[in-house]
């Protein structure tokens, strides 16, 4: 979606404020958001792509006014509500009114290390790739209202394939629970002048990782 998350190349967000690397959290509530978000993912009501879609679907005024942990929390609330696990009223009272639907999938403390260490690889067996490293490709002008990972600044632009990563789960379908539909994933590199116009930094190139359905031969 052309949502608030799609900020690459946009103006007006101000300066970047470096931060000491020893700092892990800015407040205790951020820790809880991290822990609860990861633990709740084990219930299996959604996948990573669906959770990204929930975050970028927050209204722009909220998205831009929130820290990233607040974005996580608000998205998590919505995901749990749509899964039928926690209603708005339960959130506001802090008291459960119904039983959990998937308590049997509750992540136990014992299992945390194994789950975090295992991760969730997104590579899958898939079709042979249509493009080869070195090919010039053009991104399509895709503007779905649903989730996509083709950023706006790199839409309808010509670049070169610099890597092929095998087939990966396709977020555009996976995010809406329409299947993993794995397809070839490439790194595509663009000159900045192609992306941002003739006044862009001539020493700069930018790459994205792009699934085959985002691309056509240039």
């Amino acid at each position: 979606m052309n949502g608030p998350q799609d900020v690459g190349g946009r103006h007006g967000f101000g300066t970047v404020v470096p931060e000491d690397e020893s700092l892990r959290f800015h407040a205790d509530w951020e820790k809880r958001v991290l822990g609860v978000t990861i633990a709740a993912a084990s219930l299996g009501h959604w996948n990573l792509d669906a959770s990204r879609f929930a975050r970028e679907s927050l209204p722009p005024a909220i998205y831009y006014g929130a820290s990233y942990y607040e974005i996580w929390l608000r998205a998590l609330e919505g995901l749990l509500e749509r899964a039928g696990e926690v209603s708005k009223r339960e959130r506001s009272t802090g008291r459960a009114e119904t039983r959990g639907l998937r308590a049997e999938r509750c992540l136990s403390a014992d299992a945390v290390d194994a789950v975090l260490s295992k991760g969730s690889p997104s590579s899958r067996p898939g079709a042979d790739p249509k493009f080869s490293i070195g090919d010039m490709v053009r991104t399509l002008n895709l503007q779905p209202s649903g989730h996509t990972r083709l950023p706006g600044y790199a839409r309808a632009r010509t670049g070169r394939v610099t890597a092929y990563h095998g087939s990966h789960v396709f977020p555009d379908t996976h995010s809406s629970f329409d299947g993993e539909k794995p397809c070839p994933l490439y790194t595509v590199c663009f000159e900045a002048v192609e992306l941002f116009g003739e006044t862009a930094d001539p020493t700069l190139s930018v790459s994205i990782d792009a699934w085959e359905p985002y691309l056509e031969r240039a």
Partner: protein
Amino acid sequence: MHDHSETDGDMDDMTARVLALETVLVEKGLIDPKAVEAIIETYEHKVGPRNGAAVVARAWCDEDFAELLERDATAAIASMGFVGRQGEHMVAVFNSSVEHNIVVCTLCSCYPWPVLGLPPSWYKSPAYRARAVREPRSVLEEFGIALPKETRIRVWDSTAEIRYLVIPERPTGTEGMSEAQLSDLVTRDSMIGCGFARSPGPA
């Protein structure tokens, strides 16, 4: 975007908000508070940028490892025990005197957790995400870094599940230093491309 000095009120709201949700989830048996604690413990104390620094230091010292890191970063990094969530598919990119690499996720906050831990606030900020792809030199200036005008810059926007680790250049004057000593020179920011490794000597 979030000015912490002005948002103590907000943070209290957020504390209450997450507490309410967590309470309901626990009451329903959907999350185990001990699991939540174990997750926090992992990313607060166990998994952080010192992992990545060890990878970089080894790459500086061990040509075979550097070669494997370039060819199959996931395997190379796993060989040091760093695996898991948000690091399933790793790529290492090597800075040189002619090319500087920078990593961003313009669409959310993708970041290589097993080697760098949790991303800093600025990495997730719209300011960094917006500007890293268009004007990385001015972003680097805000980190106190000036790149030579002729240095090529390559920005890696993490739009899929591939996670990028920048291998900064080895500082001069570090001949004969041990991997452990070298890893102390490797800053988190240098592994994102927003800094250089430190020079040895008095800090």
